[in-house]
């Protein structure tokens, strides 16, 4: 029933000499939402950025272990461009590129060298519908993306990720820069998205994790403490650390 999409095996990660992640083992299930929770600085962002090898952008970063994806170890993959077109990412703050809404959403297709105008238009529309933004922007597709509100920008960025039909989208606290109304729209959207893709989301907001996710992983000081179905983890945690964290009794 739960089909494994990605399998993390004994993952360690180092910024230079400093080890941040320790021996993490975790399965990510297809068409499910997995939330990563844990106190600030525990390594959630660092972990998330292993999946699309973002750490390769900077020097002296080192991975050990495996993230298995379609029989291959992501950490050993040579073609990062191909990898990143299969694994999308959405950041804390909206990151609209300085171009029109249409060009933003079509950007990934352009990078892939898709030339067929009709196909691009169809994909852009489909992605915007998928990101629950189509009705708001269909009359101004060619105006600058920077003119949208923060919440709309974030949904456009999600549409941009969706347009290349990725196998998984990584979200790093996607609502932390948004107001409550924009946040609830994104949460609603997240619940629908897992029908078409897989979601791995970092959040420091436990209510959000409880609301949107099927599975939750609790990370503490770079160690995976507990990984469980969200409902079980929040109602009946196995580990004392987890219980202390979710009940807010953390010292």
């Amino acid at each position, binding site marked *: 029933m739960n089909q494994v999409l990605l399998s993390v095996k004994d993952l360690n990660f180092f910024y230079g000499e400093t080890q941040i992640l320790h021996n993490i083992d975790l399965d990510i299930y297809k068409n499910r939402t997995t939330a990563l929770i844990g106190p600030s600085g525990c390594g959630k962002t660092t972990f998330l950025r292993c999946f*699309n090898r*973002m750490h390769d*952008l900077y*020097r002296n970063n080192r991975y050990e272990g495996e993230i298995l994806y379609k029989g291959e170890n992501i950490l050993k993959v040579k073609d*990062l*461009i*191909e*990898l*990143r*077109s299969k694994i*999308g*990412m959405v*950041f*804390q*703050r909206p*990151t609209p*590129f*300085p*171009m029109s809404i249409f060009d933003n959403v079509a*950007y*990934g297709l352009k*990078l*892939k060298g898709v030339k067929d105008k009709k196909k691009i238009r169809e994909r852009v529309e489909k992605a915007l519908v998928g990101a629950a933004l189509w009705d708001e922007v269909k009359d101004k597709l060619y105006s600058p993306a*920077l003119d949208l509100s923060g919440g709309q920008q974030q949904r456009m*960025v999600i549409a*941009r*990720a969706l347009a*290349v039909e990725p196998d998984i989208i990584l979200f790093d606290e996607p609502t932390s820069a948004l107001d409550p109304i924009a946040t609830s729209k994104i949460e609603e959207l997240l619940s629908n998205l897992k029908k078409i893709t897989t979601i791995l989301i970092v959040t420091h907001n436990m209510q959000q994790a409880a609301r949107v996710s099927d599975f939750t992983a609790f990370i503490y000081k770079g160690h995976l403490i507990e990984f469980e179905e969200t409902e079980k983890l929040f109602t009946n945690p196995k580990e004392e650390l987890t219980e202390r964290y979710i009940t807010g009794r953390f010292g």
Partner: protein
Amino acid sequence: MDRLYVFKDRLFLTLTVLASIITVSIVIAIFVVLLLASLDAIKHFGVFHFIFSQTWSPHRHIFGGASSIYGTVMTTIIALFFAVPTSLGIAVFVTQICPKSLKGIFSYSVELLATIPSIIYGMWGLFSLAPVMRNYIEPALQRLFLPIPGLKVLFEGTPLGIDLLTSGLVLSIMIIPFIASIARDNFELTPKEFSESAYAMGATKWEVIKDVIMPYSKVGLLGGIIIATGRALGETMAVAFVLGNDHSIHLSLIESSTTIAVTLANEFTEADSALYVSSLFYLAFILLFLSFFLLSVAKFLVKKGVKRHG
């Protein structure tokens, strides 16, 4: 106690207001004085004729500014032609490619170019660059471009090394530090999340630079380029040695010419008639107007850019 504070406040306010009033008055006064001093020439030659006539003949008391204006504009265009791509290249290299440890050295050495006095650039142009241009580069350019019909006019004539091309090159080196450092600052202002976002979609380094970093910096860059243009327009010493002082318009880039600033520097001392002096003031007025106009546009764009970035 309270009274003293109020007094100090007032005094400070008065001083700052005074300072700004004085600054503004000086600018206005310069405009007015230049305008008054050129009045003779304006009446005599009109606006249109002065700007478009290239006859500059002190003997016949006929003065047309076209050759000086042409030289000013051409040297500036040549300077920008070389300086803009070079500066962008430098900024891309410093911010995106070179290892962190070398970044400081590169930035610093480019900025060092800005500290060299312009007279030194002029001397370098005359003694080092001009002979190289005359003996090697210009003959090579002629071999390359003379056979091409459309480009022939740009490279006709005997290479002397004292010409528009050499002047434009000297100017370009002078303005590179301005454009390069403004470009570098703007590239670095592009929030990291934005370039990372593009990388995360599978963009290559070049695509990130082209699609995200450059467009993000567009407005600031434009402002920097316009400020550099203002400098190139008014530069005197660096080009006085390497342009010749030739009041006729040649389309060829390897012919001598003159600029407004060079004409002013060379000819005030020998201006023997009121009309001659007035014509020189007229040229000065045109130069001030050009620079003022460009700078206003730059300010406007930069302001708009700042708003954009939020």
